[in-house]
């Protein structure tokens, strides 16, 4: 029998099931990711991508299976703030009275005291993170006055400030400008070199080929999982998208 050292895996998801009031949203899902790996989570709307993220962040309870993060429980991962979640722009109230600085500072809350008073190290971490996503001149800009791309960069900065080893990105390329797309691509390479593990959901098949070492195709359960070059085949994509041809998704060139 193959012996597995759980410590080798950043994310180790084993046969998880999630149901909402008896309605199954995800079943028998597996995923194993090591440090420095980037994995694309691909599926139709309602295929369970968000549910997968919800399970990994502990936002929903799993009804079956096991999740281990860095070899430990999800609760430990929350206490050590090992996971950072970068939401979709649509998932955020853009009229909330907070600015870039406030949002990035939220990445440090977990390591502060109960009153969440920032120390000098927190201030420095936030400043560095904002600089890394090139938003220094927007430090006091309210979220409502930011463009889609700037908003996305703000939440990436929050993940950077959090210093998490795992990044979960929900549609990182949706609704962003070219400048942000380029910056995100550069950050991905840096994150990879830093040994961070990235799981990103996307509708854009070209980005999967460009950035992802691994791909997880889901349709309520895992359709296929493995290295992008092996798994991202027209047959698997057709199955994942309920019979829709890859030509339709990629264009006839692919």
């Amino acid at each position, binding site marked *: 029998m193959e012996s597995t050292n759980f410590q080798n895996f950043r994310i180790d998801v084993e046969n998880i099931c999630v149901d909402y009031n008896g309605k199954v949203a995800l079943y028998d899902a597996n995923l194993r990711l090591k440090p420095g790996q980037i994995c694309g989570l691909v599926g139709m709307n309602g295929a369970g991508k968000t549910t997968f993220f919800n399970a990994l962040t502990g936002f929903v309870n799993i009804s079956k299976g096991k999740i281990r993060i860095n070899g430990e429980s999800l609760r430990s991962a929350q206490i050590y703030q090992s996971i950072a979640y970068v*939401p979709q722009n649509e998932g955020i*109230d853009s009229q*909330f009275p*907070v600015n870039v600085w406030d949002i990035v500072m939220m990445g440090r809350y977990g390591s502060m005291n*109960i009153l969440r008073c920032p120390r000098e190290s927190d201030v420095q971490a936030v400043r560095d993170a904002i600089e890394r996503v090139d938003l220094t001149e927007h430090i006091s800009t*309210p979220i*409502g006055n930011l463009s889609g791309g700037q908003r996305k960069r703000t939440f990436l900065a*929050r993940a950077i400030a959090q210093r998490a080893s795992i990044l979960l990105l929900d549609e990182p390329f949706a609704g962003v400008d070219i400048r942000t797309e380029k910056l995100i691509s550069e950050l991905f390479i840096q994150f990879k070199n830093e040994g961070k593990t990235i799981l990103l959901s996307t509708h854009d098949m070209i980005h999967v080929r460009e950035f992802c070492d691994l791909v997880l195709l889901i349709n309520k359960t895992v359709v296929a999982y493995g290295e992008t070059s092996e798994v991202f085949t027209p047959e698997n994509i057709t199955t994942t998208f309920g019979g829709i041809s890859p030509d339709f998704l990629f264009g006839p060139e692919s």
Partner: protein
Amino acid sequence: MELCSFLTIDTFITNPLTHDFMRKALFMSSLVAAVCGFLSSYLTLKGWALMGDAVSHSVMPGVVVAYALGLPFSLGAFIFGVGSVALIGFIKQKSRVKEDTIIGLVFTGFFALGIVLVSKIKSNIDLHSILFGSPLGISLSDVKQTVFISLLVLVLLSVFRKDLMLYCFDPRHAKTIGINVFFLHYLLLTCLSLAAVVGLQSVGIILVVAMLITPGATAYLLTDQFDNMTIISVLSAIISSVIGIYVSFWFDLETGGSIVLAQTFIFLFAFLFAPRYGLFKFKKLISGYKK
């Protein structure tokens, strides 16, 4: 008659202060306003206006039962306030009826139960003062309890100020970094129930929801900073209470109604003239004029 006596603005302000009941009413209403104003920021941002309405009405039977049994009315209010939310959640989960409908039927059901209980339980409960508030006739034991609850809520909200802000803004991130969102959810509900109890003494159970919504909505129009929003919300609530009490004193009007009307006028003022988000967007007008 009294109207003739205020010849100057000075008399208008100082004359009521010579009465002990007015000083007490002003102090108590300002304290209650501060509590409700503070909480109001969170309710506005969390989108809990309807929930505030539900909880504030649902505490009614709790207050009546607590009075009848000689228990602190905050305890009864808390049990029924949180109980109503739990019931709303339960019905939502187990039926196909939409949430706003459930909220509407649960809080009116609780409220009706409260009214029936008042008429059935023989006690010295004054239905009128519960429904419309009685800041001018507040008793000493009520003062002590209101001060205690108000300070408790203010301390809780101050300590968990940033966590609650994060919970309203991005609960998933809060959960991811190990913050107990379940605790924050019930903390907010508990504070809401307690604020409803202290608020009902000031403006009455029918209008207490205004104390919990209007100051936050006013502040939301005036700033893009969360801390400023809290300060503006608290200040506008306190100012409205003071204006309401003075107006009710001089013009012999219902105090609760006057306080809420003052809040509504302040909101309308912000709605029309807020620099960035007002109907007339003064900031743009001024910059346009300068050009």
